[in-house]
């Protein structure tokens, strides 16, 4: 199904869709007089005549009808359109024309490719993976036995002891911080997370942060941050019910 060949029978216009587009673009037909709903109806009728759904035609039609609707809306409400849109009308028209031109060039090029493909369809050729290039022999430079021995001696040395200290990493339990923050929020309505964990180790800070996220998930507190890397402000949420115990905390962090 070719959208551009869609036959239209409207009050203002009778003929193929393509011609309507051309006349509108050349301003020989005022879009304000054209019943766009009639075009949609005609398209849907044509679509219903077919068994299969032509998605490509539908896509093309949607793009074209959307462009027409925008043009018509701008024509009908010039002041409102100018006020609402970010672009000035002439900028919008410029942009629209540029896109139409660009797309038309792409269509034109696609058409050329299609014709070319039809014309070159009787060229058969061999296809396959590129053959492997022969292995290039790279002869070694003459070697000094002494320097070889030197290198081997280096290799034979015991490697330096590898530190295993990080293997013992243990995350402090998140639950510890859950209790701590709950207690804190009973005393104060809000606190600054960074200040609260400032003197902890990184691992403790990580667990503390997980605890804050967990409490946020359970709806027990609110988190605010003005900007990335800004201080995190934690504040109390007014509790209407006491069901937070049910919703607690399945966070368990295993040590690495």
């Amino acid at each position: 199904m070719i959208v551009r060949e869609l036959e239209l029978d409207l009050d203002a216009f009778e003929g193929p869709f393509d011609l309507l587009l051309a006349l509108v673009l050349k301003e020989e037909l005022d879009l304000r007089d054209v019943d766009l709903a009639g075009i949609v109806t005609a398209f849907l009728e044509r679509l219903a005549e077919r068994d299969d759904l032509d998605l490509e035609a539908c896509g093309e039609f949607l793009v074209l009808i959307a462009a027409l609707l925008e043009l018509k809306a701008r024509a009908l409400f010039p002041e409102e359109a100018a006020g609402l849109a970010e672009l000035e009308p002439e900028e919008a028209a410029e942009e629209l024309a540029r896109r139409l031109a660009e797309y038309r060039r792409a269509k034109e090029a696609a058409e050329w490719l299609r014709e070319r493909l039809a014309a070159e369809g009787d060229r058969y050729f061999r296809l396959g993976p590129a053959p492997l290039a022969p292995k290039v022999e790279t002869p070694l430079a003459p070697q000094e036995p002494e320097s070889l021995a030197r290198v081997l001696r280096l290799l034979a040395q015991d490697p330096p002891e590898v530190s295993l200290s990080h293997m013992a990493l243990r995350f402090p339990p998140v639950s510890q911080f859950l209790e701590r923050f709950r207690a804190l929020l009973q005393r104060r309505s809000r606190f600054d997370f960074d200040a609260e964990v400032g003197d902890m180790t990184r691992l403790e800070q990580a667990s503390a942060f997980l605890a804050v996220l967990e409490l946020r998930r359970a709806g027990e507190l609110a988190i605010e941050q003005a900007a990335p890397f800004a201080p995190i402000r934690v504040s109390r949420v007014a509790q209407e019910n006491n069901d937070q115990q049910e919703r607690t905390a399945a966070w368990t962090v295993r040590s690495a």
Partner: protein
Amino acid sequence: MDRPLRLIPTDPLDTLARTLEALLVVASSPLPVEELAAAADDDPERVEEALRLVGERFAEERSGIVLEHVAGGWAFRAAREEAAACARLFERPAQRNLSQAALETLAIVAYLGPCSRPDIARIRGVAADSAVANLLERGLIAEAGRDNGGGGAVRYRTTPLFERVFGLESLSELPRLDDVGADTAEIRDRLHAVAEKRSA
């Protein structure tokens, strides 16, 4: 039978032409002159001369094998007259059933490439993901770096297979689209005039 058979040609250019024929029949993709010269261990000017000789031998309507200059190199292909027989034996997945969306996407990549999926979608007004995937699978386009010096969207360009399927010596053989451009300049002026009138 002590007499040696006189099969070996004495003309050195003819010898080179034989070497080129051998290289071309083994190759599965077009070979540029430099590559042929390196493999034949001869200089490029003489290789071009010998290629003319091979081209005369393997010309359309003279031979079932035809020498052609395509995708920046030289390659043998079947003569057009033999296409029907070839079609009974071989399938060509690269060009079968190319949809309108795929052809438009291919055209955009060929003319504007390397370009990314967002670039293509901006021009066509619809997402290009499936058309791009389809063309990638057929081997007509390939990845060619990323936008913004490596951090952005993947960019695509057409492959030598594209040039070969479409019988192009290079992308510069694609026609210029200037005449279409002139037409759209007119549209733009008109739209511009409309906009000015209505905003005034």
